[in-house]
């Protein structure tokens, strides 16, 4: 399957292991990714907070570039926040022809135009896995079922709310896909209170205490529920859950130390890729125990 690929900026900045893992996993899943290297940041909600028209223009440009990729089935992203921020803009662009025409005027000098509707879509890897690739196809490709690995799903707000904007009418189970994918990888999904809550990232610079209390509490809940690690389709969540974990410990007054995997890393493990290639050594919270568990499986 050929796809226009929007990696987002965080995956190429602070979470390079995500970008690398996706590159390693894609061919194993039969995906041909055409990276949109001329596209710009989605704005992560901050640009639309500043200027909605600007955010809509920037994302319309990304969509137009993606629509221009010859033979692509659609556009894929690897960031819950990109999905949410882009869906928000797309919702407005799709809702009103006059508005869309106005925004398209900003793109005209480059000969770009965003066209609404048809069969074109923009999906996060998580949605792509279930809806386009299919869980059966994924299962068939699993060479190392992650038996015994207990994984806590962490979705990120932007991919679960608001349901009306995010296509839940058509796909009502999108808030269960992570559990399904974890199972398809042979691992066991762990239920805990924070799986669909907010990691606190958006306010880490404006209210550190509220932000890190959220992050810390969810990781503590996952630990208490017996998770070996957490998996997330959102690199921004990853920043607050992994990079900030040594600090969020202080706000929940306990030790944490629970590894947080990116979605393509978990899949890569099940597809038999090696730890280095998946960037598992590039985390703040060490992933050694997860690696040891998986290595033991391979040996068995």
């Amino acid at each position, binding site marked *: 399957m050929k796809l226009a690929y929007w990696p987002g900026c965080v995956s190429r900045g602070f979470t390079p292991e995500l970008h690398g893992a996706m590159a390693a996993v894609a061919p194993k899943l039969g995906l041909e990714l055409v990276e949109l290297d001329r596209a710009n940041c989605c704005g992560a909600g901050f640009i639309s907070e500043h200027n909605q028209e*600007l955010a809509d223009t920037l994302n319309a440009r990304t969509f137009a570039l993606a629509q221009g990729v010859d033979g692509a089935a659609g556009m894929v992203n690897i960031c819950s926040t990109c999905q949410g921020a882009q869906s928000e803009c797309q919702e407005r662009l799709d809702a009103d022809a006059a508005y869309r025409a106005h925004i398209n005027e900003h793109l005209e000098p480059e000969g770009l135009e965003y066209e609404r509707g048809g069969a074109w879509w923009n999906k996060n890897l998580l949605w792509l896995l279930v809806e386009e690739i299919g869980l059966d196809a994924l299962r068939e490709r699993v060479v190392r079922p992650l038996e015994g690995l207990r994984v806590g799903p962490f979705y990120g707000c932007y991919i679960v709310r608001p349901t009306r904007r995010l296509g839940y009418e058509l796909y009502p189970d999108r808030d269960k896909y992570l559990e399904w994918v974890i199972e398809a990888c042979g691992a066991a999904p762990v239920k805990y209170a924070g799986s669909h809550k907010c990691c606190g990232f958006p306010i880490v610079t404006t209210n550190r205490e509220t932000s890190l209390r959220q992050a810390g509490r969810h990781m503590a809940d996952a630990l208490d529920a017996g998770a070996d690690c957490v998996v997330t389709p959102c690199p921004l969540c990853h920043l607050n859950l992994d990079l900030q974990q040594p600090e969020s410990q202080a706000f929940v007054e306990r030790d944490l130390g629970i590894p947080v995997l990116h979605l393509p890393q978990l899949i890569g493990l099940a597809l038999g890729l090696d730890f280095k290639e998946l960037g598992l050594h590039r985390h703040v919270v060490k992933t050694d125990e997860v690696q040891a568990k998986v290595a033991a499986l391979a040996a068995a």
Partner: protein
Amino acid sequence: MPDYSLKIRRYNPESGQPAYWQQFDVDLAGCSCQAAICGSCGVRINGMSRLACNTKLGEAAEDAPNGAIVVEPMGNMPVLKDLIVDMDAVHWKKVQRVVPWLLPEGDPPDREYIVDPESMIDITQSMACIHCGACVSACLSMEVDPEFIGPAALAKAYRFVGDPRDAFTEDRLLDLAEDPHGIYDCTHCFACIEVCPKDVAPMNQIMRLRRRATSDYGIKDGNNGYGHEKAFSDLIEKYGLLSEAQLLPKSYGDGSLIRAQVKPAALKELTAKLPTVIRGLRSGKVSPKTALIHRKLKDQDQIRRMYKEVESHEDRLELNLYIVGDSDAEEEGTMAEGGQEG
């Protein structure tokens, strides 16, 4: 008439006993307005904050774990008894906090105030609130910070900030921006939007408050909301992609790298943050190059042109779907498969 099982969380503070679950089998339930108007029936059903009166039993039964619909009192507020929470202690107190009445300039006119109907459109969404408290119950910032002013009260604040008759717009914004539990304490989690039965979209009203505070009044708050937003937007204008390493110092200096170095408060915050960046370097997560040198997007001049074009006109263009509706949707009758329905 089908039978439904309801699993209800009961609690009586006078009994001295902890809360307990009790299961009832019913075939009909109803009280109060039953029309999503009075706002008195907020509860959590299967974990979701919502109005009991506009929840269909059949649909709730489908989502019910183990066949019984789980009914609990709303969250983030103390339980008075069974399903009744203390709205006064939380919700109404917070609404009071934002001065929820009009503060016009000077003496009232002899007859009514005359306003241009157009100018009121912007606040109709925030006026639709029925004070049911569902958003307060679901708020994820309030869950960890009970002092957060919260979605309902901040939506109400926008109702007055956006009212052309009010004379204290800037003071209101300053107050809400400076409060550490004000507009910059909202974690942008969409929970309030998801649960609100009246489509008030409290989070969107909070974003409007931020937009007015930063862009219209240039309020440089002590919580760094102004700096963060400005830094983010400036970096993307300049580079097209975001670099967190530069975002931190920039956002602590009102959007300027230089100011971050001279403003004492900013400096303190920034040094508190440095361990994070250093940790990123040490874990091999980030190379010094990515941390310090910003990648520049190809075609960045195009981004800059778009910024200029959009920001050069005075009027801010906002498309509020609550007001305009999804005018295009019916015309084609199909939605993109990604499902961006309005």
